């Protein structure tokens, strides 16, 4: 028998978390890594994984002490466990739903792809249908998954960091370079959303 209070804790955690819980928790995660003598930055793992696969034979950029970066791979591994636990044990009462605004539901209807799916408010899934192996064999799914990965991997290393390294770590340390990178993230994101989405969806 599971004690009643444990079930209550589980139900409490399972609610969708508001921004004022999620944001401060991310800052605490950054602090924990600083306290452990490390700096928060997930995309650095791609460089470590390339180096571990022998990319150092092709470019000096991958000749570094990647063995010392095992801790960051452990953060990524832990994130996978966290994703599994959240999805399997702390599912929201209304299911895997993204609680987006009415304005978002309405604007999705302007794109042909989403008009066919006809999402109503409160029914927008957390994960879009194109995150699937079936969709990968359509031009749209391939572009989103494979193309998105290529842009994210290339851009993150070119900019020297991703959302965690620049938007959280760098901005918290008041680094000007990180502010410029975040402006770049948004200019790229807005270009994709407003100029290219009407062609893709």
């Amino acid at each position, binding site marked *: 028998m599971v004690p009643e209070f444990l079930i209550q804790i589980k139900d409490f955690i399972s609610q969708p978390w508001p921004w004022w819980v999620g944001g401060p928790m991310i800052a605490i995660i950054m602090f924990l890594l600083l306290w452990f003598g490390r700096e928060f930055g997930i995309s650095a793992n791609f460089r470590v994984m390339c180096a571990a696969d022998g990319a150092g034979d092709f470019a000096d950029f991958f000749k570094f002490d990647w063995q010392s970066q095992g801790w960051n791979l452990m953060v990524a591994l832990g994130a996978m466990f966290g994703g599994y636990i959240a999805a399997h044990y702390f599912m929201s009462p209304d299911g895997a739903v993204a609680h*987006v605004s009415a304005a978002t539901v309405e604007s999705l209807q302007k794109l042909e792809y989403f008009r066919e799916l006809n999402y109503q408010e409160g029914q927008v899934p957390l994960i879009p249908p194109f995150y699937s192996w079936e969709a990968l064999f359509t031009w749209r799914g391939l572009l989103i998954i494979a193309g998105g990965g290529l842009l994210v991997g290339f851009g993150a290393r070119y900019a020297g960091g991703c959302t965690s390294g620049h938007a959280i770590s760098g901005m918290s340390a008041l680094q000007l370079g990180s502010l410029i990178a975040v402006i770049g993230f948004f200019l790229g994101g807005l270009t994709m959303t407003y100029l290219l989405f009407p062609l893709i969806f």
Partner: protein
Amino acid sequence: MKLSKFILVGLLFGIVLYKSEAVSWFRIYEMFHFQSFHMYGIICSAIALGIGIVQIIKWRHLKSLEGTEITFNPKDKTVPRYLIGGFIFGLGWALAGICPGPMFILLGSGYTVLIVFLSTAMLGTFLYGLLRKYLPH
């Protein structure tokens, strides 16, 4: 034991981003349409508290668990790499709706197709390593 604390931090990170819906393509779509405060609230409150934490660390000269003073690596004083690299990253972030953290989180929650995203992200990183000397920084 030394590495297990990093797994626990990662685990917490995964649950936080999943439960606050920051892993959702639709939340990123909403953010780039300025249709909700949610994502801005997450990012801005993390930065606000983060600035306070960093200032206290610098002011009190706090030491890490390993006994060394916590330091912050200054970023290069340049614009092109951050703006151009950031722009390319932003295109991919909006398109796929995930950045590297959420990619690992969703891979763990069962969306195995994201192994393709992980592979092409590694390929992108590799291409950057090859082309690095020809790119403006």
